[in-house]
């Protein structure tokens, strides 16, 4: 008898408890969601640009080797060149995607960088970001401009590399390399323009980094 009274007592609280559980469950789907993490956009972009520079340098070296080795056995040089073209086709996607997004979003892209800087834990960096805001904006605009120029010249560069690979694929001989020298020269010229563009972007990224470094801070290696 006593047990059944206790059990009945518990069951009395079930409906309100069910309501409370539903309310808590519904609330937790939204209020418990964590804030998105701000991304160190410009730091990441600098890293990606440095990687892109290394890839373009490697590709141009492989292109030069084709001409250098043409009169001996050009096959190994061709294999290395084909591999470099494949690598740049894939590995350039990140820097190209960022350049394209920057072009699509314009000033709004930079506002996200500002939002990140306004939220960093280091108060000195926050103050430096506020203090150098106009100069940072100018650096961003220069980097943005250089990114668009790199985008414009990268497509013909890649296209000529792919054409060269196709021409030499079946038979990488001195005769074929000689016949393709116009294409080789065009690709080398376009590649140097891409390198110059990436250099300019890196220069602006370095300026931004210097503006935001508190005095006396030792740079990371």
């Amino acid at each position, binding site marked *: 008898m006593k047990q059944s009274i206790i059990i009945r007592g518990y069951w009395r609280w079930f409906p309100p408890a069910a309501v409370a559980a539903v309310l808590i469950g*519904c609330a937790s*789907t939204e209020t418990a969601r964590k804030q998105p*993490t701000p991304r160190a956009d410009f730091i990441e972009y600098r890293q990606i640009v440095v990687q892109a520079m290394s890839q373009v340098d490697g590709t141009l070296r492989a292109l030069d080797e084709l001409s250098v080795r043409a009169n001996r056995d050009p096959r190994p040089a061709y294999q290395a060149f084909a591999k470099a073209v*494949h690598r740049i086709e894939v590995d350039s996607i990140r820097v190209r995607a960022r350049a394209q997004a920057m072009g699509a979003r314009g000033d709004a892209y930079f506002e996200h960088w500002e939002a990140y800087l306004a939220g960093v834990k280091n108060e000195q960096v926050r103050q430096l970001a506020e203090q150098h805001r106009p100069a940072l904006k100018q650096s961003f605009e220069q980097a943005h401009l250089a990114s668009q120029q790199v985008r414009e010249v990268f497509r013909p560069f890649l296209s000529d590399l792919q054409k060269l690979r*196709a021409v030499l*694929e079946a038979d990488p001989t001195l005769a074929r390399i000689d016949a393709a020298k116009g294409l080789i020269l065009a690709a080398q010229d376009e590649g140097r323009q891409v390198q110059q563009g990436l250099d300019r972007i890196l220069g602006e990224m370095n300026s931004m980094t210097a503006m935001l470094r508190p005095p006396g801070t030792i740079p990371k290696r």
Partner: protein
Amino acid sequence: MKSITKKLVLPAALGLLVSVALLWANPVCAQAPGSFAPPTTPMAQRNAMNLVINQGRWFQNATRTASSYSGRGYGLLVQQFQSVRDQYASFKSTLTAQQLTAGANRVAELDSGLDIIQEAFTDYQTAVANGQSNAPAFANMCGVLNEAIGVWAREFRQDCRQLRVG
């Protein structure tokens, strides 16, 4: 005994009715009748994210086997890539306004990444039009697509973590 049963049933029924009514009214937990807005709950986002990742893997598998489809391989890859795009578009519709605002740069980069990967299809057609043999041109395209979607998927997963998806 009967009166005891009645005392239990009535509150329970009332509680159930109230719970259902609250579920129906709550805009977070339920969709109003006639509404076509996709849910933005963590579970919906997690499911959508996993669908994108899986679709990416299927696409990678397709790039490895497409050459064995004698002529139909290109169409298959185009179709599979479009499926990746479609799943990604569905995933974006599960993001909250806060996530879309905070992640606007990331979303723009992911959008651009897919546009750039799609260029591989045009590059293949150009190569063949310029006289390259179909088989090596197709193999080059498959190799690029396979690796490129892997790079994109890694960026996607990283961005999902930073956006606190799911």
